[in-house]
């Protein structure tokens, strides 16, 4: 990627034309990046003539922080999680974005009213809502199939190993849901000592049967290998395995964890104007709806939902696979970036210590 960067800058320097602009977008790779290339980059290049370079990172907030700290910013637009967007904005690493500059919905509704709650932050604009959900292998269970978060912790009725992410953020809440805490009281519980203890006690009940994963591709692989019978993972990845690859998986829409991914522009980016153009273009109603054609992540605009139709295979209805489906949202837990900014370090240490203990 760096070579392409150097090459393209060199070519631009040879005086092709002053208008040969470009913008460097850092995203997450995989099917998600492909959906962005199809839905945002290609139409953007066609419309403006600005070349888009897509760069993949494990978590784009890491290179963003590194580039800003080193005073050597090479990326223009970064796709980051909402908690990182708020954190980096508070640290003065990002350009502030005025919602009034964003394009309105086709019916004229201003952007401020069109985006769902939390999708517009001081320095970042969301493009998708995604969920961490439970999926299971339908061939593993005879008779009753699991249907709730509590079933995930029920090793007797539903035997087999479990796949869980190695982070407190997406495990503690699930334990509490399974233990009977309502979705809207999760963070109140986690604020208290007893609540955290309760979550760890519940996790204790399955600790010996858990395979811990770190990368988003792993839970899908673990399920496909038959190594686990149930796993939590990103709904878009499971969708891809189920619909595109025909794997016998099923998603349990109970106790899903909702996260936003946002576009942000770092201070000192090399092409700030093109970056802003790209951001506005990508978060417009049509483009967000277009992305839903390639991956099962919910668009961050209300006006896009109506435009979401079929998957790129032309037959799968996307609606029932979207984490933003109103039916699923009843039991969903929404990410609370403030809570995690405050407690991430503490809970991560306790989680690691709990993991290491036998």
């Amino acid at each position, binding site marked *: 990627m760096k070579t392409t960067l150097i090459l393209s800058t060199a070519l631009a320097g040879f005086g092709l034309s002053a208008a040969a602009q470009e913008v460097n977008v850092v995203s997450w790779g995989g099917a998600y990046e492909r959906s962005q290339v199809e839905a945002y980059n290609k139409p953007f290049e066609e419309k403006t003539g600005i070349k888009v370079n897509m760069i993949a990172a*494990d*978590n784009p*907030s*890491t290179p963003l*922080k590194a580039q800003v700290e080193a005073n050597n910013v090479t990326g223009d637009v970064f796709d980051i999680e909402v908690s*990182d967007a708020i*954190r*980096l*904005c*508070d*640290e*003065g690493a990002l350009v502030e974005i005025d919602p009034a500059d964003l394009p309105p919905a086709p019916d004229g509704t201003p952007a401020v009213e069109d985006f769902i709650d939390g999708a517009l932050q001081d320095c970042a604009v969301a493009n998708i809502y995604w969920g961490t959900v439970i999926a299971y292998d339908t061939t593993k269970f005879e008779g009753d199939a699991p249907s709730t978060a509590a079933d995930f912790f029920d090793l007797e009725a539903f035997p087999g*190993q479990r796949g869980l992410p*190695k*982070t407190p953020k997406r495990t503690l809440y699930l334990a509490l849901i399974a233990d009977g805490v309502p979705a809207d009281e999760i963070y109140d519980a986690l604020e208290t000592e007893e609540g955290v203890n309760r979550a760890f006690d519940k996790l204790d009940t399955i600790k010996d049967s*858990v*395979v*811990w994963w*770190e990368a988003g591709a792993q839970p899908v692989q673990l399920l496909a*290998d*038959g*190594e686990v019978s149930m796993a939590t993972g990103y709904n878009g990845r499971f969708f891809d395995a189920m619909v595109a690859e025909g794997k016998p998986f099923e998603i349990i829409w109970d106790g899903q964890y909702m996260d936003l991914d946002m576009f942000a522009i770092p201070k000192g980016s090399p092409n700030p104007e093109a970056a802003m153009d790209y951001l506005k273009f990508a978060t417009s109603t049509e483009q967000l709806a277009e992305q839903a054609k390639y991956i099962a992540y919910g668009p961050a605009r209300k006006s896009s939902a109506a435009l979401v139709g079929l998957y790129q295979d032309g037959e799968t209805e996307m609606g029932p696979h979207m984490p933003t489906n109103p039916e699923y949202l009843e039991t969903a837990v929404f990410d609370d970036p*403030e809570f995690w*900014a*405050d*407690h*991430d*370090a*503490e809970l*991560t*240490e*306790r989680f*690691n*210590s*709990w*993991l*290491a203990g*036998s």
Partner: protein
Amino acid sequence: MAHASDPQAATSAAAAPDGPLTTADGKPLAWSLARSQARARRRAFFLVLPLLAFILITFVVPIGQMLQRSFYNDGFSANMPEISQWFAENPRGTEPNDAAWTALANDLLASAEERSIGVVGTRINYDVPGTRSLFTSTGRKVRRGIEPPYREALLEMDEDWADPQLWGAMRDASRPVTSNFYLAAVDRTRAEDGSIEQVEPRQRIYVMLFMRTFWLSALITFLTFALGFPIAHLLATLPMRKSNLLMILVLLPFWTSLLVRTTSWMVLLQQQGVINDILVWMGVIGGSQRLQMIYNQAGTIIAMTHILLPFMILPLYSVMRTINPSYVRAARSLGATSWTAFRRIYFPQTLPGLGAGALLVFILAVGYYITPALVGGASGQLISNLIAQHMTDTLNWSMAAALAALLLGSVLILYWLYDRLVGVDNLKLG
């Protein structure tokens, strides 16, 4: 050089009556020699200069900068100058007075307007969990306006501002140089009065992980030795044609990507994997008793032993090749049993290779990251996995730097010990 007052020197210098030896053009020999040597040294230095510059720019400087973060964090002091000044003027134990509250309010306002309040909050949050949002939310409120008396105004915004632990943490952070990250890296923390105490048992993790890292690395080093020694011996003694074939078997995995080899172990070892399948098929274990060989410590040990094996075999092999077989034959002919001949004649001669291999394997193992992350599960994690987590997830680079510095320090100590016990000049890498 001989001294002029030395009687013997006087006789030998008799041929050259005006003092020291000279070259044909009349310059002193020693001076001339030193000059030509200096020129040669300069030339050699210029030849290695590119490498030196490369190492300095890409290795020493960035690592130094990174390590600097472990004890230098000006997140608070640079953005909160007035209150830092107040801390410097008033010793620990002073109750915050009006001047302190005014300084705090002024700093919060300035920091909130410059959008650096997040940095300040993050810095304090490392020491007092749960306080980051106190800074950012107060910052937002202060921007809307704040009137004196500041103490009452701030306490009205959030009563947590009265917390003495918070003030203690702010005092600690008011100087950019801090030992707090090193303390945290050995499961210690600073109490309100400044004394050092252990963290709660359920938050303790790093000391245990350091111990585990060293213990597992030592075990893996021993395993590579036990498995690699006979192979290296076989390689060194077989006729060339056969040993070349064997060598390729050692080198092929060595050239294969680390990730590929780790993933292959996942395919082999997992519960629905090849080895378990074979065991079930042969009837050794029942279908429901499949062995858990991966996603735990066993997985880390097996995969890392395999991956690091060539680093033990190659130095051993290169040393064994040079051992003259007639020594062992001589020992045998003098009546030694084959065990004694091995123990007293052959094995001591392999020590330079063994030392090099053990040092290589151990130091590589101590810093290993990808393999434990993929196959280690919960109980097979090493300290580098936590360093990576602080680098990429919690973005606490100071903590990552402190842990890395401790790791680097302990490796250097081990190297020094090795030098004292075995001698580094005995090391033979090939």
